[in-house]
């Protein structure tokens, strides 16, 4: 707001011994346990940790806001000399959206579906009379342009559902920037985006924050992303600070074991093994949802006992391919050949044996399990349905399966709601294993999980493959996951297969254009990665 040049050394935000309680399971738990945080003007602080570490809660607390079900129980929060703990609601409202702005994770859910983008962009500035409404609107167009949005003059007149997720995220950055705040809280702003889109959004956000010398707290679970954005990184775990250091120092010499474990997750890499015994092949498949054709002449072959990873952005046809294989979506033309014989196109025409041999694990373990069934019911069902196991034999087998996924029999009586995210996904794996399948289709099974939990699940899947010679078709948009688990890679783009081959072939040059874009967009643990990438791309992002 102030026009005088601001020095980087003036402290903008100071949080001391902040404690926040959250209400769940009928009682209050401490979720932030005395965290200190100092932010100077124009400084960007990266806040990193697994889910449940309290990053988001702490980020919102920096605004003096606690979401419903949480309460501030101690500490002080000083924003530019204003005590946000003691400030009244009205005083805080005067700061929110004007001097402190918030950029949420899911732009699609955080824009009001009933209003045009431009109205929402200028809302805060206009409300507080920062400048005349018409000026704000003209300024918003400038911001849209600076954020490299297509058609900056007219995009504001669109409704949220009419633009893509990556564009919405940039409009939200424009919305935060519109009143020229002193501080922006970015709450996982690129987590929901594809890697290729993420690069564009990251660079746009970084440029604009730099241009206006805005201070920011950047919350994420992705180290490589925060390395591009932040001057300083603070690691949180279980609501406590693990350590804080300047970005370069943190990346090269983390002090704490926990931080080092965050760093090492991405190191997992399975040596590839070539396979010639094709168990399943997709042969010239075209598929459509109603009038919208989504797969064009897709050919994929999957060798027995190997992992084929299908990579691509959202909308590239990865999940549709899985639906065709399982019979959920009969293809328009082409066929799926399994063990040398074509499978019936539709699910209802397949025999029980065919169903048993192809199992599926989904991205959202939450929604893939009946919330009213116990772990025992969930795993025992396929045992009874496919194998006809009953009574003691069935119970023994459930215990055995639980052991395979590294859980003990005490889990049998639990409901899905009583499990952590990683445990839920393990139960889904056990359910797929129970059918004793030849092939398991894994649809983004680790995308919703934290890095460390991801690593555990991937290791489990690899071990099971070794023991039972299971074949995986692994759908993912995450290149690190691909490196970790695959033997072969299929790259998909806009419903077509760009290339298929051994991991080493696909991941080494020369690359087709799209593969090049996809691979180069994966953030690396190097603070200069984004800068170098952008200068290497001739036409910019």
């Amino acid at each position, binding site marked *: 707001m102030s026009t005088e040049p601001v020095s980087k050394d003036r402290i903008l935000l100071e949080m001391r011994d902040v404690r926040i309680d959250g209400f769940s399971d009928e009682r209050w738990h401490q979720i932030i346990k005395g965290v200190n945080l100092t932010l100077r003007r124009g400084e960007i602080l990266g806040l990193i940790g697994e889910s449940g570490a309290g990053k988001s809660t702490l980020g*919102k607390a920096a*605004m003096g*806001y606690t*979401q419903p079900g949480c309460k501030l129980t101690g500490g002080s929060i000083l924003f530019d000399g204003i005590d946000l703990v003691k400030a009244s609601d009205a005083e805080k*409202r*005067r*700061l*929110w*959206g*004007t001097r402190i*702005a*918030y950029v*949420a994770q*899911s732009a699609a*859910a*955080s*824009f*009001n*579906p*009933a*209003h045009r983008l431009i109205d929402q962009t200028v*809302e*805060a500035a206009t*409300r*507080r009379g920062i400048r005349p409404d018409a000026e704000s609107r003209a300024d918003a167009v400038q911001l849209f342009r600076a954020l490299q949005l297509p058609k900056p003059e007219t995009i504001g007149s*669109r*409704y949220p*559902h*009419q633009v893509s997720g990556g564009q919405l995220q940039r409009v939200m950055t424009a*919305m935060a920037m519109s009143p020229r705040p002193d501080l922006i809280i970015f709450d996982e702003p690129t987590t929901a985006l594809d890697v290729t889109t993420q690069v564009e959004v990251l660079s746009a956000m970084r440029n604009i924050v730099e241009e206006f010398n805005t201070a920011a707290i950047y919350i994420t679970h992705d180290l490589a992303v925060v390395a591009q954005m932040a001057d300083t990184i603070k690691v949180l775990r279980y609501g406590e600070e693990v350590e804080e250091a300047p970005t370069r120092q943190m990346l090269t010499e983390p002090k704490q074991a926990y931080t080092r474990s965050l760093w090492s997750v991405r190191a997992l890499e399975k040596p590839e093994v070539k396979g010639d015994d094709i168990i399943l092949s997709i042969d010239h498949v075209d598929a459509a949802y109603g009038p919208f054709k989504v797969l064009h002449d897709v050919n994929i072959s999957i060798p027995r006992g190997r992992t084929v990873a299908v990579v691509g952005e959202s909308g590239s046809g990865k999940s549709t391919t899985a639906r065709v294989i399982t019979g959920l979506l009969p293809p328009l033309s082409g066929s799926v050949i399994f063990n040398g014989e074509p499978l019936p196109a539709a699910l209802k025409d397949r025999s029980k044996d065919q169903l048993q041999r192809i199992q599926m694990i989904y991205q959202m373990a939450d929604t893939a399990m009946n919330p009213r069934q116990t772990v025992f019911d969930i795993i025992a069902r396929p045992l009874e349905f496919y194998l006809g196991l009953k009574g003691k034999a069935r119970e023994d087998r459930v215990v055995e399966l639980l052991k395979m996924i590294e859980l003990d029999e005490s889990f049998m009586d639990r409901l899905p709601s009583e499990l952590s995210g990683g445990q839920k996904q393990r139960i889904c794996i056990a359910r797929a294993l129970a059918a004793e399948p030849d092939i398991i289709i894994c649809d983004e099974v680790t995308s919703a999980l934290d890095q460390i939990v991801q690593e555990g699940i991937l290791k489990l899947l690899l071990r099971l493959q070794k023991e039972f010679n299971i074949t995986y078709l692994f759908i993912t948009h995450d290149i690190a996951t691909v490196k970790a688990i695959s033997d072969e890679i299929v790259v998909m783009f806009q419903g077509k297969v760009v290339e298929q081959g051994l991991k080493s072939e696909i991941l080494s040059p020369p690359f087709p254009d799209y593969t090049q874009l996809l691979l180069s967009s994966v953030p690396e643990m190097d603070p200069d990665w984004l800068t170098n990438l952008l200068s290497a791309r001739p036409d910019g992002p």
Partner: protein
Amino acid sequence: MNAVLATILKRLGLGLATLFVVSAIIFSSISMLPGDFGQAVLGQSATQETVAAFRKELGLDKPAVVRYFEWAGDVLQGDLGTSFSGRNASGQDRSRQVSDLVMPRLWNTLFLAGVTALIAVPLALFLGLTTALYRNSAYDRAVNAATLTTISTPEFFVAYILILVFASLWPVFPSLANVDASTALGERLYRVALPALTLTLVIVAHMMRMTRAAIINLLASPYIEMARLKGASRSEIILKHALPNAWAPIATVIAFNLAYLVVGVVVVEVVFVYPGIGQLMVDAVTSRDIPVVQACALIFAATYILLNLTADIIGIVTNPRLLHPR
């Protein structure tokens, strides 16, 4: 915009088709009513021949299908037929056109419904929005308790209490709401005050609670939190950020209650001796006056269909996803 117009026209067409199906159901269910108009008018002592002749005169001897299409064809041309009553065994015919019987009554009913709606809908919206705004406050609890009480009390009881208070103990309004075509507007409003108040008390609770629930339901959305973090005040959040997304469920419940005001108010009409269409239909059923019953039933069905259609259209035009496709 054209896509929306097309949708509305499609809904309108579906509404007409529904009305057609309903007319067939009305006709066949009335044919299945026990008893016979000829026998009812002529009495138990009438001979078979007299009854048969009388039935022939009214056209009741033809097969049901033929009668249905004759009736439906007439209705399409705006002719609701001739009432059965007014005839008797001696051959006198003082019967009247159904439309002459129904229209003044329908007008009375619509007048009462209109007056009630003008009070009840704004009141319910106001209460719904303010209770959502100050939810869990003493005000919220008081309004909820009060409206729950009125909706849980049988409407005839509410009516009698109001008569006791406002007509008897503190006589400001008349207890009888007998109006006719010659009653002036001011006098009409004065006479329908108590029935309108009764009906308001009966329908406000439902609309108010649904408005409150629809708004509160949205308050957990991420975009509402975003609005808060942009510094919007409570009233701005409710009116500007939640309400525009809540019109569809609110319109549905309002339409439902307005339909009730037209088709379901016979008890109130009886208590206040108000000459509405509900009483007419009940009388016609008692006297087996089939054309009147059919006309009333058709009007009721049309009311439901039209009001629900309006609610659907409001749901469409307040949803930018439908109004502005990608």
